[in-house]
């Protein structure tokens, strides 16, 4: 059987895909350089990065991202550990619960949050601090499928029972077992979960917008309304950030390829 050197049909689709990837990418880059009339410059980037509102909203979202990561790990890690150790029968239930955020779109979810927590008995929308508690819970929920899956995959690859028994026979208590035995074995899983979680919070629009907190998403929509070149620069920055996050993710989880979704749409 003679084999053709190149399959033209394959090359056609590959080329089409490459064009679809690169034309908007290059177009955005080119556009972002044209803020100054007549010459190419990084003025739009300077303008974005020196805007105090951008910096403030970026800082808010980044801090929220870190808090969300910490709370997610504190909730999911002990739960999944305990489940593997003592309660394997809970896994199907917990698994279904953790994909619920895929079924309930964020816009519907925030609707429910507002209906539930904007009045008594659990009013959480009156002060910025209380709203921050609510929004953090929301971020934890929205990123739960990714965080749960990351830790679950990690936990599956270690022998929880043997490690626990070994630690117990050496006299460790539960906190010591988790902190000194389980967590070091799950470093990579926790790290990749944390990256996805952080990226989700940074890119999240709906929670910040409808709970009226100064997050990055609402700032960008606002900026897109009355600026021309800065949004293009922000798109390039977001592109770079996604690239870094995915690169780190791939670097940390070499060999464990899985389709991951980062941003909230």
């Amino acid at each position, binding site marked *: 059987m003679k084999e053709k050197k190149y399959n033209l049909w394959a090359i056609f689709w590959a080329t089409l895909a490459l064009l679809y990837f690169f*034309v908007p990418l290059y177009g955005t880059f080119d556009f972002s350089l044209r803020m100054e009339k007549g010459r190419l410059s990084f003025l739009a980037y300077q303008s974005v990065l020196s805007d105090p509102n951008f910096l403030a909203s970026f800082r808010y979202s980044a801090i929220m991202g870190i808090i969300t990561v910490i709370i997610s790990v504190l*909730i999911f890690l002990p739960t999944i550990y305990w489940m593997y150790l003592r309660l394997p029968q809970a896994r199907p239930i917990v698994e279904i619960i953790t994909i619920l955020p895929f079924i309930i779109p964020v816009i*519907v979810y925030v609707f429910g*949050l507002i209906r*539930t927590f904007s009045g008594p008995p659990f009013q959480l929308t009156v002060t910025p601090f209380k709203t921050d508690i609510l929004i953090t819970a929301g971020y934890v929920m929205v990123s739960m499928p990714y965080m749960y899956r990351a830790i679950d995959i990690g936990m599956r690859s270690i022998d929880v029972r043997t490690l626990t028994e070994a630690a117990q026979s050496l006299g460790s208590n539960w906190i010591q077992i988790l902190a000194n035995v389980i967590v070091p074995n799950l470093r990579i899983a926790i790290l990749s979960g944390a990256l996805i979680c952080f990226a989700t919070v940074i890119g999240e*629009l709906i929670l910040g917008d*409808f709970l009226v907190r100064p997050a990055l998403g609402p700032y960008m929509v606002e900026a*897109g309304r009355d600026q021309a070149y800065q949004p293009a620069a922000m798109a390039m920055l977001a592109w770079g950030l996604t690239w870094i996050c995915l690169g780190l993710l791939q670097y940390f989880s070499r060999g464990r390829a899985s389709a991951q979704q980062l941003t909230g749409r």
Partner: protein
Amino acid sequence: MAEIVAKINPTKAVNRSEALAPLWNWVGVLPFFIFIFVFLILPSTNLFVGAFQDRNGNFTLANVSVILDPYVLKSYSISLQISVITSVLGGVMGFFVAYAITIGKAPAWMRTILMSFSGLAANFGGVPLAFAFIATLGHTGFLTAILRNICFPAAGGSQTCPFDIYQAGFNLYSVTGLTLAYLYFQFPLMVLTITPALVGLKREWQEASENLGGSSAQYWWNVALPILWPSILGSAILLFASAFGAYATAQALTGGSIYLVTILIGQQIRGDVLNNPNEGYALALGMVVIMAVCIVGYSILQRRTVRWLKS
């Protein structure tokens, strides 16, 4: 007393403590369930209960009639339209790109770039995606400007510029524009989800088909596609769901002038545009029902695929 009972009937006591132990184990996952209950189950059920209440809190099915509201009908039809079109187009394109990467033997450098860019683009959504398309295909966008300046001299000394897309009726801030933007993450998502299935196609199957005198078309039609269809359909459903639930790109691109269901829900949250909060909850419930059907369908099909890929 208890000691005596235990002595008389020791098996019963053992049984009781064994029955209690698993119950005690559930305490370990209690914090998780409390958190889920307060911040996921409570808000969701609260919303869905509202969908079946009238203004005074009495049970009613009347809110379901919100679907007959012209705005709601329009929003559902536009959302469904965009989701179906982008999942079909994205599905077809993604399938062939995945084919090019795996079986099609595209040049190695193309495969590497396509694979890593699929991961990247599938995750590039939200507001920045809208910005990228405005910069590329907006009124003064990069590609718009290039196309506009391709002109030819026409009869009578004037010029004709056949690629002036806005002159030709194109508008980025429309359903067409939104479709183009969604495809940017839809077809890479298809590439990511369908590639494992294509890799799972065994070379022996094709060889067997060839040995029996089957043509390439016959192999695809009679062997490969019957194996692949659950994963193709499953991936398409996933694409549909990802477009159906999307909000940020549409909001940033069109400022809410395209009536998607998600946009309408957003407006309902802000200002009760339906003039009846309970109808708003019914609207939201409708979305969840559609999403639930999608995810359940996807996981059933996924299970069928796994069966093939493992064997």
